[in-house]
């Protein structure tokens, strides 16, 4: 049985990416005699993660999001358990919770579980299954998960990064904000926008590229350099863009107009700063 060390959620995401889009099964975390949890995978996406000691956490999150008191939630939980009905789907069917809120709750729970499961001595073993059972709508790409983990770990930074991406990359195909944490070996995504590459592996690679390109350009270009590299495409020209703003490495992919808009905004910002206008 193949074992992989899962030091961080990035390692867990990399394992799911390596398994590929056809993978169906689970990653069993911990030793055979002492399992600590399971990550369920279908179609190269994470469906759900369960960690020891967190069995009631999803119920708590669902209660917070649905604004249901703990007593009411407990009653709903018991009723669902008796009928063998999944709680979240029951809440959606009864109109207590919107489907997107249910998805948000699942994402938050999966992120919290992954953070608990991954540690310096955590080992994961892939256990394939022949068929899947999760609704694709309620599954998560590794990119989405890793960005959520980054946002969760860095608190308010995730929200400000999301606002910055919305302001700067209005016409981009996708964009991502990374933070450079001295305790982390790679720039960590804290927000994504649009449709980024679906694998965390690809997004982490872009984060590393962006940080390196900016550092390299700083050696000879004054101020904050804006790096734009044209990517070969059969359709319209597409560019990978990287720049630094508010202590974040921002990267994204855009057509010609998107790049021009960002440059224009940066020039306007510089002009305002030169004239002392905030």
């Amino acid at each position: 049985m193949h074992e992989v060390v899962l030091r961080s959620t990035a390692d867990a995401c990399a394992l799911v990416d390596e398994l590929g889009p056809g993978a169906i099964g689970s990653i069993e975390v911990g030793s055979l005699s002492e399992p600590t949890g399971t990550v369920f995978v279908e179609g190269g996406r994470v469906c759900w993660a369960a960690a020891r000691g967190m069995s009631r956490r999803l119920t708590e999150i669902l209660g917070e999001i649905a604004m249901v008191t703990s007593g009411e939630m407990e009653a709903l939980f018991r009723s669902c358990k008796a009928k063998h009905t999944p709680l979240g789907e029951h809440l959606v069917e009864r109109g207590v919770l919107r489907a997107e809120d249910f998805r948000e709750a699942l994402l938050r729970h999966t992120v919290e579980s992954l953070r608990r499961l991954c540690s310096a001595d955590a080992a994961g073993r892939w256990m394939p299954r022949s068929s899947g059972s999760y609704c694709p709508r309620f599954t998560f790409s590794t990119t989405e998960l890793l960005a959520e983990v980054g946002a969760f770990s860095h608190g308010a930074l995730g929200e400000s990064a999301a606002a910055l991406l919305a302001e700067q990359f209005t016409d981009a195909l996708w964009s991502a904000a990374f933070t450079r944490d001295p305790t982390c070996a790679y720039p960590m995504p804290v927000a994504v926008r649009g449709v980024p590459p679906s694998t965390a592996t690809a997004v982490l690679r872009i984060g590393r590229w962006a940080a390196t390109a900016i550092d390299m350009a700083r050696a000879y270009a004054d101020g904050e350099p804006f790096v734009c590299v044209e990517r070969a495409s059969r359709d319209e020209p597409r560019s990978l863009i990287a720049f630094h703003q508010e202590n974040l490495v921002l990267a994204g992919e855009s057509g010609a107009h998107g790049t021009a808009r960002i440059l224009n905004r940066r020039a306007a910002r510089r002009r305002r700063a030169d004239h002392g206008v905030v």
Partner: protein
Amino acid sequence: MELEHTMKEALAARSDAVALACMDTRAGLLVGIEVRGDALRDDVELAAFAAADLCAVPSQGIEGDRDECDEAFVSSSRWVHAYARVPGRRELVFVGLAPGDTNIALLRDWIRHVAESVRPAA
């Protein structure tokens, strides 16, 4: 000698550009540099040495390779650096430098034409 002549002519033809360099990204050699005005030769060299890294992006697959790109540019408040690979001699990358208020699209057009002008004959 021919490259030096081409570069001198190209720089002379573009009034807003202040430097032009050519880098062999495979050998890691600066094969030509022309500078005028207030451009710092050291900075132009550094920009040329960064060509191999700046004219490449991570590949989109799971494997960690890089894809070479035809063009790139770096814009900062004082300078714009435009890069272009030579068609048919992809290891050669030209970098042109102009002040920060230059028209980036025109500078990119120029450096593309410079790169195309040294394309090997078919």
